[in-house]
């Protein structure tokens, strides 16, 4: 007879405050409900306020694991990338966000964790270790990430260089990376502005690429970053 197999929550045994900041966090029933509700509101907001257009909707992933990647000019970007994913994946999609922006204050951290399902990546401290933990989790297959490889919002709206961290997540694995391009977010809500203006947004979703034959080391990571950046640029030109 096959032995029963239990897998406790990956963030099991942590106090609530620690759970919020843990990169292995898994949503429970309450968080799942909140996420579905919040993202339904996000979709509505994007359609009404920004009259969003989506090209290549069929390229969005139907199953985990995956990494959604795009240019980054605005806080709207993570919402745009996440909004059109199938709702049954909702509690397994994690925007990777800057720890120092979203998890430094407790109230913002709770919001980011419960409503966005965001995971923190601390830009200055222990980034490499956190990335390897994120890679391990991605390899487990039960999650997808939303990631902005530029590392921060471009203050001029132009596409900056991609950091190799993206490569550290996927090099040598079959995990598909889906390049996307978001147009109009900089005009709608650039860094430094308090509130978003009602400008039209366009999301272009590209074809998935995997980097199974790329070596999991610095040269490989940089190759991944370059290749994906090229794809995002191509999408921008269409």
């Amino acid at each position, binding site marked *: 007879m096959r032995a*029963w197999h239990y897998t406790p*929550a990956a963030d099991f*045994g942590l106090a609530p405050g620690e759970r919020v900041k843990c990169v292995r966090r898994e949503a*429970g*029933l309450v968080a799942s409900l909140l996420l579905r509700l919040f993202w339904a509101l996000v979709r509505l907001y994007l359609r009404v306020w920004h009259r969003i257009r989506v090209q290549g909707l069929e390229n969005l992933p139907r199953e985990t694991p995956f990494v959604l990647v795009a240019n980054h000019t605005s806080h709207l970007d993570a919402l745009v990338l996440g909004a059109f994913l199938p709702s049954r994946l909702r509690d397994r999609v994690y925007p990777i966000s800057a720890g120092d922006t979203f998890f430094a204050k407790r109230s913002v951290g709770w919001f980011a964790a419960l409503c966005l399902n965001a995971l923190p990546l601390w830009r200055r401290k222990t980034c490499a270790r956190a990335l390897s933990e994120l890679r391990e989790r991605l390899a487990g297959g039960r999650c997808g990430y939303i990631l902005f490889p530029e590392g921060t919002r471009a203050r001029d709206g132009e596409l900056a260089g991609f950091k190799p961290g993206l490569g550290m997540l996927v090099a040598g694995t079959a995990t598909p990376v889906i390049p996307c391009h978001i147009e109009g977010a900089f005009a709608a809500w650039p860094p430094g502005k308090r509130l978003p203006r009602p400008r039209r947004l366009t999301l272009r979703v590209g074809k998935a690429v995997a980097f199974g034959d790329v070596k999991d080391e610095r040269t490989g990571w940089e190759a991944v970053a370059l290749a994906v950046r090229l794809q995002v640029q191509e999408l921008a030109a269409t």
Partner: protein
Amino acid sequence: MNTMERLFGWRHAFDHPVSLGITVCVGALLLLAPLLIALVNRLARPEPRLRRELWQRYTSWLVIAPAVMLPILAGAAWTILAVTALSLACYAEYARATGLFREKLLSALVVGGILALNFAALDHWYALFAALVPLWAGLLVVAGILGDRPQGYIQWVALALLGFMLFGAALAHLSLFANDANYRPMLLMLLLCVQLNDVFAFCVGKTLGRRKLAPNTSPGKTLEGSLGALLLTTLLAVALGRLVFAGTALESWPLLVLMGAMISVLGQLGDLTLSSIKRDLGIKDMGALLPGHGGVLDRFNSVLLAAPALFHLAHYLLPAVGHGQAARIITGG
């Protein structure tokens, strides 16, 4: 007593001398505990780890004791609300520990079952409560089929059923007690006996313990501690029960001894049940909500089996728990 007074009548909090006595004793104990801890530290000089744990446990008790006692004293509605919150907290810890929380439909249904049972208790509709247990179990069995993923069916459904029975059906008996006009002393007596039962077992075990009770399940427990707790808890329960059940069939000595022994044995078995679950999962505590204790379940495991047993003993021997109180106060009929 009319229904609104039973539900919200905090003025009746100390109608029964046992309610007052237990509240005063627990309050005094919480006030004196720092002195006792200081005394232990001075005389026995425990190692720093134990010293810190003692202190953590005490500060947790400062939260747990009012969180348990205030709703009971305040009224039946608050009691049922608190029991519901306790059930949900226990189930959440269990679901995350076993991985059952990933089966969203089953998990949502267990939560729904807990809410339904406590609604039936609040409504004082015992027939609905009794019907809900087997019917909701059937619902869980059926819900497991719906995903058309038979791999792991038995495991998920069995986990859901165990969770529903222990943290739903069993704990909701605490809510059923609240339908009785005299529920405060009964609940306070049960909870005090069950919690002190753990303390007795710990203390007797530490001083006299030699033979291990169940080394594979819970290596810290000893046969001597268990028997000591059985003796002391029974004495306490008999003394309190004599006052709580004065003028009823449960007043007789042999029945009171039976009741006390039952509370002690089932309290310890509830503890061992959770120990078995934790051993099987390979974890030490069910959570980290209560510093020094672990999770909510680590503190309330010993009520799980004792609550339904005491309820049915009382329900059988008294005129009935909730006798003379209006039934179906929400649904009518």
